[in-house]
Structure formats: structure tokens, C-alpha cells
């Protein structure tokens, strides 16, 4: 076998050559897109069940376990856990639903709350020991959620405004001089119907993908450069960067979950706008 190989990760092992170090005549085993391909743990028919899927499902139950503990037997005078859960809920309820949509956003609160915590959980897996992989860095998960948001967005648009009103809502922003509409109407249509769901999915995917790649680069580099005295000095630097990036990622994960949810709320808010 030649050295140039495609390396994939399974649930347990790392997706790079572990016995290769600096000054040993072998090149840096840089992470690649293939670091995001996992061997299946088991296969059911056509579905190869792999580690990210497992993480997604564990994440689901982690969210539910936390909020179940906080909210299933709620007290008027809250305990500590309930208080934390309430603060998180309030952040989405008041900070996103009320802030972006207003009073009409109340029916969408469960959707927004679920979206925020689900996306955050998928992102958060990147930092949880042994998991250490952001599930949302696999394009399928953001695409699924963005499709769902798109369907709801379209449904709400047409249900609120009727068919003609819905088309108007999607294509004709109000309050502009007439000639502008010649250019703006197709742009608006493409933007609202196609670009929005696409960017919604890709923004989340790309952020998490890039973040994971960054952390992989410096983590692998730390390992790769160990061995000699000089190499260890380099490795220390690389390790510090890894730690800094990890903290940064912690921030990005929450931010991307927030952005995903706020954008969903913005789309819904626009869909709920009455025709002028």
C-alpha cells in the first residue's frame, strides 16, 4: 500500500496517521474532508448508522433529559436546575421570538426553542470528550433543518397572505419607487425562495466544518511535532492555539445556533407580515 491513502474515522479511532512525527521524514498528515466520513457502526438496509447519527440521537435525549429535569415538575418558586432551564428558555422566548416576531411569534416558540437547543447540541458535540465531532459539520443535518424551516416559512407565508398575497410577500417588498420593482422582484423571489434556505444550511455547516478543521489541524500538529526537543516547543505552541481555538469554538457554536434561530424567526416574521 502506498502512503497516500484516504483515511476515514470510525467511532473510536482518529482519522490520521498517528505514528508519523516531525523530522522523521514523513509529511504532516493534514486533516481533509475525509475526516468527516465515518465508518458505519452497523447497517440497517441502506442506512449506514455511524457515529454522528449516534451523537445526534444521544444529543436529542441529552436536551430532553436536561429540560425534563428542569420543566417536568415545575415549581412556582424554582429550584436551581429549573432556574437555569428557565433562563435558557427565556433567552429564546423573549430574546428571539418576542424580539424578532413580536406577539404573533407565540405559536412558533416551541419550534424556535427546539431549533436553538437542537442546533446548539449538535454543535456542542465538537467539544465533548470522546465525541469531539460537531454533528452539524455534516451537511445533511443543516440541510434537513433548513428544509424544515423552508417548508414552514412557505406554509406560513401562503396561509397568512393567501396565494397572491403570498407571492407578493415573497417577491414585492413594499414602499419602493415603481421602476425598481422590475429589477427587485426577481431578485427578491430568488433570494427568499432559494437563497435563504441554502444559506441557512450552508452557514451553519460551513462554520462548524471550518471550526472542526481548524481544531483538527492544530491538534494533529501538536501530536505530529512531538518527539524531539525543538518539536516539543513547536507542539506546545500548537497546543496553546488548540486551547484558544476550542474556547473560540465554544462561542461560535452558541452563536451559530443563535443565528440559525434568529434567521428562522426573521423569515417567519416576514411571512406573518400582512400585505400592504
Amino acid at each position: 500500500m502506498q502512503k497516500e491513502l484516504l483515511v476515514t474515522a470510525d467511532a473510536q479511532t482518529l482519522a490520521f496517521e498517528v505514528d508519523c512525527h516531525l523530522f522523521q521524514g514523513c509529511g504532516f498528515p493534514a486533516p481533509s474532508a475525509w475526516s468527516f466520513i465515518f465508518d458505519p457502526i452497523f447497517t440497517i438496509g441502506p442506512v449506514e448508522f455511524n457515529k454522528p447519527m449516534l451523537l445526534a440521537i444521544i444529543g436529542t435525549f441529552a436536551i430532553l433529559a436536561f429540560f425534563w429535569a428542569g420543566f417536568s415538575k415545575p415549581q412556582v418558586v424554582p429550584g436551581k436546575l429549573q432556574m437555569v432551564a428557565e433562563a435558557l428558555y427565556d433567552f429564546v422566548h423573549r430574546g428571539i421570538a418576542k424580539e424578532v416576531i413580536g406577539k404573533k411569534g407565540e405559536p412558533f416558540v416551541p419550534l424556535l426553542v427546539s431549533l436553538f437547543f437542537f442546533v446548539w447540541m449538535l454543535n456542542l458535540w465538537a467539544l465533548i470528550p470522546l465525541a469531539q465531532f460537531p454533528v452539524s459539520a455534516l451537511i445533511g443535518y443543516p440541510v434537513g433543518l433548513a428544509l424544515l424551516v423552508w417548508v414552514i416559512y412557505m406554509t406560513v407565508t401562503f396561509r397568512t397572505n393567501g396565494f397572491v398575497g403570498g407571492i407578493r410577500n415573497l417577491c414585492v417588498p413594499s414602499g419602493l419607487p415603481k421602476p425598481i420593482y422590475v429589477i427587485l422582484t426577481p431578485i427578491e423571489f430568488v433570494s427568499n425562495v432559494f437563497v435563504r434556505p441554502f444559506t441557512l444550511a450552508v452557514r451553519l455547516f460551513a462554520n462548524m466544518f471550518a471550526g472542526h478543521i481548524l481544531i483538527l489541524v492544530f491538534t494533529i500538529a501538536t501530536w505530529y511535532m512531538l518527539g524531539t526537543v525543538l518539536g516539543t516547543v513547536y507542539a506546545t505552541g500548537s497546543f496553546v492555539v488548540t486551547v484558544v481555538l476550542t474556547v473560540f469554538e465554544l462561542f461560535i457554536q452558541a452563536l451559530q445556533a443563535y443565528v440559525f434561530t434568529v434567521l428562522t424567526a426573521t423569515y417567519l416574521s416576514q411571512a406573518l407580515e400582512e400585505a400592504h
Partner: protein
Amino acid sequence: MLHLAAEEPQSPLLPVWPEILIGLIAFGIVFFVFSKKLLPAINKVLEERREAIEGGIEKADEARIEAESVLEQYKAQLAEARHEAARLRQEALEQGTALKEDLRAEGQRQREEIIAAGHAQIEADRKQAALTLRQDVGKLATDLAGKLVGESLEDHARQSRTIDRFLSELEEKAEAAR
């Protein structure tokens, strides 16, 4: 775990449908539990809490209003009591004045009575004195006449002396009586 390029695994930049499916199912579970169980539960409690806080405020308001009405009552009662006291004092003053007036009138009356009684007494005394005097004068005159008759009028000079003596006697008597 090593794959040759020939095995051609799925490109990581293209979504695979099992991922979409699993993602949506997982999200669906989260959404279902949140919307059916957890959020209604916590919303109910948040509403209860809001009501409890507002109820507390309402209760405090009620207490304040009651306290104000009680204070109002007390003030009214106090004003009434003051009014009553003033009225009583006024009445007492009037009664006192009337009583003083009465007493004065009574005193006046008694004084006049006493004065009148004094006058009557004096008059009676005077009458009594005049009567006694008249009797005395008569008796004296009789005495004098008797003496004059008894002297047999021998000589004019003696007569004169007798009269003089009599008169001086009278004077002495009067002096003594005085």
C-alpha cells in the same frame, strides 16, 4: 479503516439522505416533547408565578386602601369629637353665664329687699322715737306746768330762774341722752 480511493466513499460536501432523515427525526422528537409537554408545563408555572406576584401587589393595594379608609374614619371621628367638645364647652359657657346672671339678679333682689327692710325699720324706729318724744315732751310740759303752778308765782325772778333751770336740765338730759 483505510480506504483506497477506488472505494469511493460519499463526498462530505453532499448531503446523504440518512443524515437528513436521522436529523429530522431527532429534531422531531425534541420538538414533540417540547411543544407537547415541557413548554406548556413551564408556561403554566410562569403564568402562575406572574399571577402570584400580581396577586401580592393587589393584596398590598387592598391593605393600603383599607388602611386609608380606616384613617379617614378615625379622622372623621376625631373631627366629630372635637366638634362635640366645642359644642359642650360653648353650652357650658352659656349655662355659666346664665347662672351668673341669675345669681346676680338674685343678689340684687336680696340687696334691695335688705335695703327696703332697713328703710322700713328706720321708719318704724323714727315713728317710735317720735311717739316716745311726744309723750316725753307732754310729760315734761305737764311737769313743768306743775312746778310752775307749785311755785305760786311769788316773784317773777324766781319764775325766770326756774324756767332757766328747767331748760338747762332739759339740755343736760339731752346731752346725757346723746
